[in-house]
């Protein structure tokens, strides 16, 4: 018996019970589609996050208070403006080019009835230089704004759109930040894609203004993050060492027990991708459960099919079918069921990925779900495997039927 004939016979058998076969296939379709769609969305998120991290610049370090690599760290000292100042010392930290202290908070921004919640960054004039920001119109935060504690703001393009409905001709408008009036002095050029905390959905205000009016911390000179720019991309690791040394001695830390963390771009990328990996595996795992349920559906229907066709099995055995012949007949049938399910599932997953991509794009999130060949292969193999695995026991039962009893059944 050749396999093509078996295949055609399986199709004929399945099509004689169309509704039942379709419902069984549906279980696999949903399982496969869910698995692929989840993997695709996960990979899309991963791509988008790493793109946005890379777009900030590669010779950048982030310093923040606290260190999860040190056990029993009690009361880490906050970072201060003086810490940032010390990092720019040419003698003790020659590889550091600029250090930009940042206060970061979340708040409501409004303009004549329109309101949005956004991140508020208190920055110095160095911030734009360190993170490679440009204004699409107007100007950025300057040293003069810092000294005068001016109530001015540079707004991100998403904020501009949600408050004003446009992204140009905004300089001179007055917006309210946490209820206080701020004059718009510039609009940030779009950074494009982003995952969490969009680069375009934030406003910048002078650090001094933020300290005194918007983002209150325990002490006036406390900052949340210091962005450090190394002299060039090659001196990033050297700059890390210098930052650790300078701040470690300022905070009186033992070596290796610093109460702050220094991260570079690569660290952040790998943290982000490990988070999205966990997320993808988690989502894929949940989706895989539905594939498992689909597989059990196949097993169930194969048992029904074997029981229904006991007489046919008896006849086939009477005219000379061996165990293997019967086994293959039913295995081909269950594999055909799950393969058809797998193929339809791939198409459905492609549809879901497209729709999710559209929805994400429409709501301003840049996630492009990507279906790649490896996922399709994985899903196809997996669904065929499901068919064989869950078809195995019913097929074995069919193959082991005794011809005498099978022929006697009604």
């Amino acid at each position, binding site marked *: 018996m050749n396999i093509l004939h078996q295949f055609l016979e399986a199709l004929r058998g399945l099509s004689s019970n169309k509704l039942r076969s379709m419902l069984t296939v549906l279980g696999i379709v949903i399982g496969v589609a869910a698995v692929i769609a989840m993997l695709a969305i996960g990979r899309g998120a991963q791509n988008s996050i790493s793109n946005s991290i890379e777009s900030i610049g590669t010779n950048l370090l982030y310093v923040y208070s606290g260190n999860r690599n040190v056990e029993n760290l009690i009361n880490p000292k906050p970072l201060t403006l003086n810490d940032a100042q010390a990092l720019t010392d040419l003698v003790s930290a020659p590889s550091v080019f600029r250090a930009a202290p940042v206060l970061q908070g979340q708040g409501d921004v409004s303009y004549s009835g329109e309101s949005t919640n956004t991140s508020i960054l208190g920055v110095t004039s160095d911030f734009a230089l360190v993170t490679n920001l440009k204004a699409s119109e107007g100007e950025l935060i300057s040293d003069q704004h810092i000294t005068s504690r001016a109530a001015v703001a540079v707004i991100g393009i998403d904020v501009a759109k949600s408050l004003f409905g446009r992204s140009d001709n905004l300089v001179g408008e007055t917006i309210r930040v946490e209820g206080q009036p701020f004059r718009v002095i510039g609009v940030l050029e779009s950074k494009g894609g982003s995952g969490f905390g969009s680069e375009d959905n934030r406003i910048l205000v002078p650090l001094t203004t933020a300290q005194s009016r918007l983002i209150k911390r325990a002490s006036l000179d406390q900052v949340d993050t210091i962005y450090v720019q190394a002299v060039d991309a090659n001196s990033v690791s050297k700059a890390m060492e210098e930052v650790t040394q300078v701040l470690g001695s300022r905070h009186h830390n033992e070596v290796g027990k610093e109460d702050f963390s220094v991260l570079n771009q690569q660290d952040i990328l790998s943290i982000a991708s490990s988070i999205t990996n966990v997320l993808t595996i988690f989502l894929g795992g949940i989706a895989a459960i539905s594939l498992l349920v689909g597989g059990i559906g196949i097993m169930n229907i194969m048992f029904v099919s074997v029981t229904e066709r006991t007489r046919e099995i008896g*006849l086939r*055995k*009477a005219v000379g079918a*061996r165990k293997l012949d019967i086994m293959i007949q039913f295995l081909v049938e269950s594999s055909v069921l799950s393969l058809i399910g797998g193929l339809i599932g791939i198409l459905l997953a492609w549809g879901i990925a497209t729709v999710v991509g559209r929805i994400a794009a429409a709501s301003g999130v840049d996630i492009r779900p990507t279906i790649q060949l490896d996922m399709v292969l994985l899903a196809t193999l997996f669904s065929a495997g499901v068919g064989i695995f869950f078809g195995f026991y019913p097929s074995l039962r069919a193959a082991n039927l005794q011809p*005498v009893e099978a*022929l006697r059944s009604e």
Partner: protein
Amino acid sequence: MNGIVIESKNLVKNYRMGKILVEALRGVSLEIQRGEVIAIMGPSGSGKSTLMNLLGCLDRPTSGEYILDGENVSRLSDNKLAMIRNRKVGFIFQSFNLLPRVSAMENVELPLRYSGVNHHRQRAQQALEAVGLADRMKHRPSELSGGEQQRVAIARALVNNPAIVMADEPTGNLDSKSGREIMDLLLSLNRERQMTVIIVTHDPSIASQTQRVIRLRDGLVEEAA
């Protein structure tokens, strides 16, 4: 070509039904010559179905020897028995047992597909012509009358040129006219092809058309006429 095609020595078959041991056959010895037409008769419970299962190699005896066409098949494995059935035994059932979804032609081809021979189509065609169904090859069983369906089953039984044909109440589901036609067909195939035919029946009018009747009672051969 004459000679012994079936020889059984002291066939015993016991099986369990729950906790009760049923002695279905208690030592059956018989010989059947090639080309004979034989009826196996007996009241229900006499063991005639069990004997047919053993002679058709659908089952193995508990003890005793069974030699079919010169080969001792009493203790072969399931797969070996399947091959013996495929090559040496043709089955005709009371309820035809045709595959409902495929044509007459494909039903007749079925044994050939498990035997790995070539020219399926040609041999199936010849078998269907031999039973007078040359114009019904593409029909499905549901499109055929009972008598025609049984002819398809006969064609299926003889497509592999078996040593014996086992017919279990072949006319039991047919009206008397179709039943007579089927019997005539079996008898003429016997005459033309020297085919050995074993018919299990409890209909005396069928048995009277055969050359010899083996009567079973309580798992033993009662008399050999």
